């Protein structure tokens, strides 16, 4: 969060990044927001996640990869990556992208409805102006079958490492 003061009508963003760890569990974390807004009382944000192993065998929906890793190619270009979802069950699923890092990536579904036995793709394309540093973001999808649930795909782009060359002795 960049601002510590907000004028009347002003706004700011609060970016929360959470590392899931190795424990397969349901996590719930809280972030307390403190300011001179005493009248509103205790301002608290809640974030939740269900950490799942790979592969996630509790779903009749298989998908791969679980994480999208972008690698910088020659000229600093980044290629589009995709996640493929397969419906291995008997019910129909409806997909919707509900959160993605605007300005850094474009995200698009090849279709919204996934019938049994079919597949769909989530295509993620980095925007042209991409920072050279390490980027860690994610995309969240809402999936509706008999029950509704969410799937989040982490996005990762590492800063290109500079390979050190061996010293060359002159003749």
């Amino acid at each position, binding site marked *: 969060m960049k601002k510590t003061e907000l004028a009347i009508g002003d706004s700011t963003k609060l*970016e929360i990044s959470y590392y899931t760890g190795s424990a397969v569990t349901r996590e719930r974390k809280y972030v*307390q927001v403190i300011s001179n807004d005493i009248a509103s009382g205790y301002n*608290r944000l809640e974030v*939740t996640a269900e950490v799942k192993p790979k592969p996630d065998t509790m779903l009749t929906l298989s998908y791969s990869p679980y994480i999208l890793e972008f690698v910088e190619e020659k000229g600093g270009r980044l290629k589009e990556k995709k996640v493929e979802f397969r419906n291995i069950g008997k019910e129909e699923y409806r997909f919707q992208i509900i959160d993605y890092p605007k300005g850094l990536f474009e995200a698009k579904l090849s279709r919204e409805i996934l019938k049994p036995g079919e597949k769909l793709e989530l295509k993620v394309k980095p925007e042209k102006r991409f920072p050279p540093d390490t980027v860690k973001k994610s995309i969240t999808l809402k999936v509706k079958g008999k029950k509704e649930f*969410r799937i*989040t795909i982490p996005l990762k782009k590492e800063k290109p490492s500079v390979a050190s060359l061996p010293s060359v002795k002159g003749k």
Partner: protein
Amino acid sequence: MGKSRILVLSLFLIYLLLPVFSELKAGGPKLEFSETSWDWGRVPQNSFVYHKFWLKNVGTDTLRGLKVRVA
């Protein structure tokens, strides 16, 4: 008798106007959130997930001392 009546009326007027003064004083900064919770749903192990909340001052005064603490 007249003076005491004036005193009672004055006190009664102050009593009636007290809520108005309180309301004026209650104006100040007010923080509003785009949402107060976010569910990432199913996420893989050993990875980073991310979400952006928006905070806005919808009050009548500058919001100061804005900071966050993980609980």
